[in-house]
């Protein structure tokens, strides 16, 4: 199948219920194209989706997939990949799923460096619950639950990732279809945890972080002489509060994925014995 996979093969027959104009359409298209472009097909791909508008993505894509509980998509993805390193694992979620309820897992998924990609649809708002502040909302962003704004600084996912030992950090924009696809592809091809924060605007509940805002403010690192393998330069970039960047902010070219460190090189699905495995009796003798 893989020889002639088209990106539409990754599309399910369910029509998305996202609001017209939602950034998630573009985000998902780029993911499907990147998966097809990197030689994957739905039967060897496993998508893990979180909860929230973004979490619906598993339903609209066609592959092996699970739509989990809120905030726990990353450990599920890691478990899938460890148990079968032959699968292409992609985890997708939103800023609430990844940086609020799931923030603890984010740090440890970064540290673990399992070879999978993590696509976060960051719209800086809670959309599915109709417009409350998210962990990436601006300090003065007024919502029904934060009428004066959250009055606390937003989470900086890029800096958090770098501080946690990330081997691949990127940021993209859902409406820049080509660049977005390219960046997701790089994340897939990276040997380790490929993290992409995607600006995926919410047209219904966020009138600040809009398409126009990102179009006007994003600086594409590909247009500069920035070297993403330079960790010191990356530190500066991820902490730069004055600009929004697009592109790969950091990549460790010597990244060794978890599976390699731990000698995981084949699927654990098969059990080639109908009783206890060979050598199991030695386990009993050990207790003598």
């Amino acid at each position: 199948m893989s020889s002639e996979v088209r990106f539409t093969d990754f599309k399910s027959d369910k029509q998305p219920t996202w609001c017209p104009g939602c950034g998630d359409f573009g985000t998902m298209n780029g993911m499907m194209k990147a998966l097809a472009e990197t030689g994957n097909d739905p039967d060897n791909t496993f998508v893990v989706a979180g909860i929230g508008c973004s979490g619906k993505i598993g339903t609209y894509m066609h592959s092996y997939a699970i739509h989990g509980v809120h905030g726990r998509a990353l450990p599920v993805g890691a478990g899938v990949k460890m148990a079968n390193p032959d699968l292409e694992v992609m985890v997708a979620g939103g800023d609430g799923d990844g940086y609020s309820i799931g923030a603890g897992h984010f740090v440890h998924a970064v540290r673990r460096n399992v070879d999978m990609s993590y696509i976060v649809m960051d719209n800086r708002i809670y959309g599915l619950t109709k417009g409350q502040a998210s962990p990436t909302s601006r300090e003065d962003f007024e919502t029904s639950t934060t009428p004066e704004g959250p009055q606390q600084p937003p989470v900086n996912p890029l800096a958090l990732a770098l501080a946690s030992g990330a081997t691949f950090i990127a940021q993209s924009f859902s409406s820049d279809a080509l660049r977005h696809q390219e960046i997701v592809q790089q994340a897939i091809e990276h040997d380790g945890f490929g993290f992409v924060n995607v600006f995926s605007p919410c047209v219904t509940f966020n009138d600040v972080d809009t398409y126009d805002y990102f179009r006007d403010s994003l600086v594409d690192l590909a247009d500069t002489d920035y070297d993403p393998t330079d960790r010191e330069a990356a530190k500066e970039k991820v902490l730069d509060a004055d600009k929004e960047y697009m592109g790969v902010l950091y990549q460790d070219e010597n990244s060794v994925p978890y599976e390699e460190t731990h000698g995981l090189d084949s699927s654990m699905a098969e059990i080639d014995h109908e009783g206890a495995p060979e050598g199991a009796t030695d386990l009993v003798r050990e207790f003598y």
Partner: protein
Amino acid sequence: MPADFNWAIGGEAGDGIDSTGKVFAQALSRAGRHVFTSKDFASRIRGGYTAYKVRTSTEKVRSVVDRLDVLVALTPRTIEENLDELHEGSIIIYDGERTTMADVEIPEGMIGLDVPLKSLAEDAGGAVMRNVVALGAACEATSFDIEHLDSSLKKHFGGKGQAIVDNNKQAARLGQEYVRDNYPDADLQYDLETTDNDYVLLNGDEAIGMGAIAAGCKYYAGYPITPATDVMTYLKGRIEQFGGHVVQAEDELAAINLALGAARAGARSMTATSGPGIDLMAETFGLVATSETPLVVVDVMRSGPSTGMPTKQEQGDLNMMLYGGHGEIPRFVLAPTTVEECFWKTVEAFNLAEKYQTPVYLAADLAMAVTEQTFEPDAFDMDAVEIDRGKVVDEESIADHQTESGGFKPHEITEDGVSPRAIPGTEGGAHMSTGLEHDEQGRRTEDTEMRVEQVDKRNRKIQTAREREDFSPREFGDPDSDNLVVSWGSNEGTLVEALEFLQEEDIDVRILSVPYLFPRPDLTEEFEAADDVVVVECNATGQFADVVEHDTLQRVKRVNKYNGVQFKADELADDIKRTLASGQEVEA
């Protein structure tokens, strides 16, 4: 002279109590003696005190008793804590050169063996071996052949090199000789005879880990928690030899989700924790059931709620395992009743999980999880292990479970409730799985008819299991007795020993030990046939008693213990006798 012998070593946490106790238990086991150990007596004074107690006999031993024949006391408190268990003729081994032990008074009628443990250990090569000197002294005091201790020392220290083993053997000998030379006239009446029997010594956590490997489990994710950590410690370094992997997760939320991921990828997968971790896992447990994922979740119960008493016994999580989680979650709850059964129920848990594609709780409890016991090696006969993976489809059979347009149906409505399972990588099997209500293809739905069909289908799996599986209780005692005693979990061994005490008082009882808590056997007929039903469990409210009252629509009497210590046979016999005699109805 008693048929069984009771020995203990006690001191402060950090004194190496557990490892010393285990070395002695292993020596007894290698000498062909049965052993039943217990750890960490409830302190009557304050925290910090810890002890390892060994009950041994040439016959099978199944519980702890309130008697100590030989005590190695590293602190004065060790003696104070055990005054009730010590008796006339008990031997207390201590180091009078230790400042805190200099003025220690040996209670009247007992024999104090003042052995310079530290000095002798230094003579043998290092003060760190002072507990081993005490073991040598204990060998002399009990006429126990020190070569068995040598053999155990070699097993425990062999990894550290021959020199360390030799030093330890020497330390033991110095202890032995010291007692021989300095207490020639002491009335040391114990004589630990040996047999040619071949036993293995292990605890429940280890049996669960070994059961998992035997069952083909390849993936374990867990977060350290007393008393479940030994499961992970056991698997680490062993499961890899069978193609598996152990992950220490960042928390229990991650642990169950990692395990879920591996299970979705097709691996036999497991996590183990204790009460606080079970609370955290409850949300994902519902997802596991709704997405119809086979997963084994072990709860090694300890005293709760909240942090409770982390190193104490309790069977307080039954309701959590039966009902925990929002919504209605089909599940299995198995409760091994012995260390041996920890192995077999783990194997069974994996088969049930895959045959019925639903999560299985394995409910173990502290009293059997962290205490070593001896068994015939045949108790863990690997040739008797069977693996049944249920309805897994391959690339050929998958066509029978697809829609006209080729969509695979992982939640196909079937007569037995079990749907086909496609392992990722199987061509034509790509599908969505979700905690949302879904149609046969796993796609989200709120269709009222499909909702009912899917709920019924998932629940039907439990009904199918009731028809196909054998969920009988284990039976002991007099089958014709009018007195029925019902128990679950690790109380079984104590109950079997309590039978003897009851017989001495001419009380006959029939014991049903229930290893299947959901689905569970229908005990209505057994209850109707009995004049009295007593339910024994280690919790305050009688959670299992409530459940069987509900099942059988009959009132039961209750024996509950929740002070953190497991039942003892004589005490339990008394409790049962008193409860049978009382006409009192329980408070409803």
